[in-house]
């Protein structure tokens, strides 16, 4: 087979992936490494080709499409790692440090979301930092807003906790107000369902 034909096949295969890449997440407990998250009902899991900024072990779920709403499940971020990834070496992505306190995780997310939308393309704010338990582990939640150029405003919720110097995070982001209001209650329940498989007791 000539090289050109391989190219056509690869292109068709990738197009096929674009159409059929989303898979259904069934209601119930989903496990991501040692992190467990409970889905209330069916969600749509995005293929990795749709989430180039996601870490390899992260997952993205959506109801109405990723531009409108998404839940990002980010398990197992180690000291020195970022919560998103970028091929742009000059992106200056902020990194998680194991000694971070909740206010610093809040800033880590704020700066990371700026990079996610594109530096200079968005203004991101956080508020409402508050304690939140995740199973037996102490964690926290906060709210996030993002004004993005040539895009709807976004609003979201973030839940996170740190165990054994490792960060676990579940983040909901949706177009504001309609899609945020539509899914916020379900997303909050999913975020609060996050627990570790192995029993641990931590404070922060």
């Amino acid at each position, binding site marked *: 087979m000539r090289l050109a034909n391989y190219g056509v096949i690869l292109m068709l295969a990738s197009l096929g992936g674009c159409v059929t890449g989303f898979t259904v997440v069934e209601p119930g407990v989903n496990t991501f490494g040692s992190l467990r998250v409970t889905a209330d009902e069916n969600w749509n899991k995005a293929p990795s080709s749709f989430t180039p900024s996601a870490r390899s072990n992260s997952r993205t779920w959506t109801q109405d499409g990723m531009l409108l709403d998404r839940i990002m499940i980010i398990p197992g971020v180690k000291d020195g790692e970022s919560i998103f990834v970028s091929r742009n070496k000059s992106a200056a992505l902020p990194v998680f440090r194991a000694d971070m306190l909740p206010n610093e995780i809040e800033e880590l997310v704020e700066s990371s979301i700026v990079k996610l939308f594109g530096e200079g393309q968005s203004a991101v704010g956080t508020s409402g930092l508050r304690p939140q338990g995740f199973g037996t582990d102490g964690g926290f939640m906060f709210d996030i807003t993002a004004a993005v150029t*040539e895009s709807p405003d976004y609003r979201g919720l973030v839940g996170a906790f740190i165990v054994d110097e490792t960060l676990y995070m579940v983040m909901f982001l949706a177009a504001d107000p309609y899609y945020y209001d539509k899914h916020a209650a379900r997303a909050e329940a999913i975020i609060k369902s996050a627990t570790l498989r192995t029993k641990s007791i931590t404070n922060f």
Partner: protein
Amino acid sequence: MIRPFFYLALMIAFSAAANAELETIDHIIPPGYEPSEAQDEQGLWMELKDYELRLNKSALLVRDPELTNYVKGIVCRVAGDYCNDIRVYLIRNPGFNASMTATGMMQIWTGLLVRSTSSDEIAAVVGHEIAHYTRMHTLKRFRRLKSSAAAGGLIDIGISIFTGTSVPIAQSLASMNALAFSRDQEQEADLLGARLLHEASMDPHAAYRVWQNIIAEEESAAVKRRSVSVFAQTHPDDQSRVDVTREWVIAKYGPPDNIEVADDALVTIMNNHYYFLMEDQIDTNRFGRTKELLERHSAMGVEPGTIYYFYGEMFRQRGADGDRDLAMSAYRHSIETGNAPADAYRNLGFLYLKEKDIEGAKKYFTIFLEQEPDATDRAMIEFYLDKG
């Protein structure tokens, strides 16, 4: 359009002959210009007007009257008879940029304000953009792109790129190069811009000083924005732009009177809006650049309590060895000025918490809540206060 670390310098070989030629550079279009009958110019105006309608609704458009009136005042002063042809939009973006379309739509990023040490430097960038406009460079660039093989694809990238305000982070360097003004156009804009400054009774020496600031910031950056090798392949050394412009301005207008000092108008703007202007810079996670800006703002006379607070923010978020101590010291200095923002108490409290100094943490958390009883993170602070 000015894109900082992209085509910072464009005037290497600046011969005496070229100098003489540039002496005669003048505006091409008159005040009140309307597009010609040419189909492509009409089309470009239509597209840009559509973009401007969308820009008016942008969530990133700054609407604060004091800030917008300040930049509009500078633009009108430099533009002179062209003032009524220009609509000014201040855009919330921590980058250094200003741009102007063929239709008279000027966009100025908030990053330009925090990178300027005087209103004259802002005016220098504005004058440069107005010169692009009155020399019809945007239309010429549009026609050059249209005639190139890549034009179709580039134009499809979006009109936002043409305006210079909304370049996607993943935009390729090659595409950006194709969108740049030519070296000759940059020369014309730099020198005609300096002339506009002089005619507005402003300091033409700001035309090169503003670039010196950008070079200093780039040198202080821990993470450079672009590969030096790619930059060097496509652009002359940025210092040469400063050198050539300085030489030309001194030859035409004489040496600078003295070291430039910040004017009250800009310092007032900075003091009244510093939080708003700098919070996006902090979010860039580019600490070397932030530190350079803070040193500059301190020298300008921006309120020390605020400057110390942002030093604390910068050190705390950078988190390198020794930064915690530096951050705590900066917050304490901020508090000692008597003009510390409430957040200085909160963030100092968090650092005491890291030091496992619970009493110290409680002391500053308590002051924070006294100053900000409606703080949205009150529940988190009270959690630590109750934890004991």
